[in-house]
């Protein structure tokens, strides 16, 4: 195998395959961390399969005219993706041409001319077999790429972590003709980002569909798709069949990811998000995230490594002072924090003191600052100490797109 390409263009276009090979992989998978380079007359194909996700990219001058691909000798090799990526990245001038050539047991990446240089990575004696892409799908839909990426990024932080509750290790995308929702949660706290407007194109006879995306592969998807320029991401999912394992196929322009290794029987039907969202709350407070910045610093100051090490419950008591129009947040563990947060507007259903307070995990309050933009108005709603607390962003309208976006986080309270 022997071909020449422009460094910068090759690096940019090969990135999805490198990421698939190295991130969110199944550690013991035989082809994890490996990439196959197949040089042919008019194009070079890169294949990677990390156990959970696979991709095959064909790079040629048709895909990127800056690539300047020239094949001297066709051939196929497999190398460690990280070693290969680092070897190419070591050439600073991205407009230079490099020759990628198999030499004995190594793959040599060399630059001729004034600044001669060569990097070698060992060849691997393995073949990469990609999962067979299914032609039959039980679900198929298209969604605007920027909405897809933004939606995932907005709620990604809320995805669960407990292996005992596997359903929460997935992010759910619900799509209707004029409404798309991104949902992630732990069972105790959920984040929901809703886009009202026609951003998804469902199949003709469908009114509603959903996809569950595995936590592990989300960083790869958002990283790759955020850098592409095509308008839509196509999502397709195979049904349960004996011949083909279940797959979700994400396509965006020339990049196609085949996602496998997820549990097709993961059940989100038990999670009744709508029922919780419909709950009526007796208290509604309008506040701004900037008012919380200092208070959150105080909250975080009490969550020391020692507290984390001892696995102590890090709870915060929140009380609304209707007269002074402020929220009082109190953490009373081995370290104490008492903070007052100014609120702009209070609506309450009565003066029952019990309904004006709650206790919750302090991290949920920290997220008001860490997971939101600065200086954003939010509405905090709750209904006494036993019911969930809602943090709602005021809806924002995107006139150019004709969409309206909402962000809601809600979490369970804790008994004293």
């Amino acid at each position: 195998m022997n071909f020449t390409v422009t460094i910068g263009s090759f690096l940019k276009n090969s990135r999805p395959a490198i990421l698939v090979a190295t991130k969110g992989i199944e550690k013991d998978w035989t082809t994890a961390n490996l990439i196959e380079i197949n040089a042919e007359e008019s194009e070079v194909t890169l294949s990677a399969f990390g156990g959970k996700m696979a991709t095959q990219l064909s790079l040629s001058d048709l895909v990127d005219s800056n690539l300047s691909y020239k094949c001297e000798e066709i051939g196929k090799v497999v190398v460690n993706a990280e070693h290969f990526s680092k070897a190419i990245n070591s050439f600073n001038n991205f407009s230079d041409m490099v020759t990628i050539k198999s030499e004995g047991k190594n793959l040599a990446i060399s630059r001729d001319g004034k600044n001669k240089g060569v990097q070698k990575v060992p060849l691997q004696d393995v073949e990469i077999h990609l999962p067979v892409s299914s032609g039959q799908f039980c679900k198929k839909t298209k969604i605007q790429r920027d909405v897809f990426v933004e939606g995932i990024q907005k709620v990604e932080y809320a995805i669960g972590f407990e292996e005992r509750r596997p359903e929460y290790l997935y992010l759910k995308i619900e799509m209707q003709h004029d409404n798309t929702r991104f949902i992630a949660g732990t069972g105790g706290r959920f984040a929901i980002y809703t886009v009202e407007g026609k951003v998804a194109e469902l199949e003709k006879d469908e009114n509603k569909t959903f996809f569950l995306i595995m936590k592990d592969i989300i960083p790869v998807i958002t990283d790759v798709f955020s850098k592409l320029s095509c308008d839509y991401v196509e999502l397709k999912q195979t049904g349960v069949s004996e011949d083909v394992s279940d797959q979700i196929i994400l396509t965006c322009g020339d990049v196609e990811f085949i996602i496998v290794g997820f549990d097709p029987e993961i059940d989100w039907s038990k999670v009744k998000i709508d029922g919780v969202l419909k709950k009526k709350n007796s208290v509604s407070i309008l506040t701004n995230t900037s008012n919380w910045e200092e208070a959150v610093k105080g909250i975080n100051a009490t969550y020391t490594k020692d507290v984390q090490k001892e696995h102590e419950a890090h709870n915060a008591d929140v009380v609304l002072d209707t007269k002074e129009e402020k929220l009082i947040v109190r953490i009373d563990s081995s370290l104490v924090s008492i903070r007052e947060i100014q609120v702009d507007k209070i609506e309450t259903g009565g003066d029952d003191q019990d309904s004006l307070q709650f206790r919750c995990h302090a991290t949920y309050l920290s997220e008001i600052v860490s997971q939101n933009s600065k200086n954003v108005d939010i509405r905090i709603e709750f209904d006494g100490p036993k019911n969930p607390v809602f943090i709602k962003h005021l809806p924002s309208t995107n006139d150019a797109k004709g969409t309206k976006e909402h962000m809601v986080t809600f979490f369970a309270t804790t008994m004293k």
Partner: protein
Amino acid sequence: MTDKDTQVYLVEGSYISCQRVLNNVRKSLGEYDEYFFDESVSIEYVISEIKRFSLEDRKRLFVINGWPVGKGKKKADQKQNTMKVMKSFLGDLPSDCTVVLYNLSTSSKTFLSLIGKIGKVYQFIESIPRKKCTNYVTGYLDNNDRQIDPNGLEILINNFNSISGTDDINIDYMAMSLEKLLHIIGNKKTISEQDVRQMMEENCNFVVWSLFNFMDNRNYKGCLKLLRKIQIKETDLTAGLIQILHLFHWRYSMLFFLKESLSTGVSEQETIKSILEISKLKRSGSSFYCFYSESSDKFVSKYNKEAVKIAIKGIYGNKSPLKYYSSIDLFAIIRKIVDTLYYLRYAKTDEIKMSLMESFFSVAARRFSYKIMKNLGRSFDKRVMQFEPSES
């Protein structure tokens, strides 16, 4: 078994029985969320999860199947702390919570009595003596609307692997074996001896005990069939075969002793007494430097009383093994065991090892008269020696 007002359950012992209680608790809750905790989390975390209100007004089931880590530097202190925290907390659970303490293996009487006061304690036995297995097996099969042939029942019970050092059978193992049997027979209502054999042939213990039966009944074909199974299963064929031959040596030496003693008019009781006086020697060293001595601590007989009684009387209505063999048969078999052991250690290939064993089984299953066996054996041994020079 469950009660709607009960919020705390402690279940211990047999897995099958514990699962039955847990499933009943699940059923009694209707719609619920389930949480699992074990020793990988802290007790503080467990409590914070229990204290958290449900988002969807559903009941919550917390299954704790390992001691969550409590405060303290030493493990014992941590467990003490966890127990202390649990004691104070479990009596005052939120109304939507049910806690199942699942197989925590606790020996603390105060803890058990506290749980008994605030909830329900189920402590199931994990094993039963082999003699009492009949009722368990027939009861289990009755519950599944199945019957079992008496011969099949006998083979089944006689071949369950016992817990090391006892003749007790683990209930979970027994239940799993019966489940396996039910899968094998499908819709059949009566389990035959053949069904049991089909299942038990996977059991190494069964291979040896079945070999005894086949040798007793002169079933050479059966012996060879099981020999193939040993060949497939054993990763170290020589070691496996040597181990089996030693067991055969033990058995046929016992039968030879009993046969000789009883044929000279010694009473059964006296014979049993005499054989049990033969001590099991303590072995030290290895290979050429192997030494034997009497065990200094306590007298240990080479044979156990139960095995001797079975050899004389038979078991489950079967004839005594002594009735199958003449003295000369037993003598020939013992000699053949000794010879086979000798040649087996020098056999290079698995084919030769298997041929040696086939030769042994032709003697043990008494395919030919003693004279023919002797001649055949001699000529075979010579050929083996010719192709297999000593490596020493």
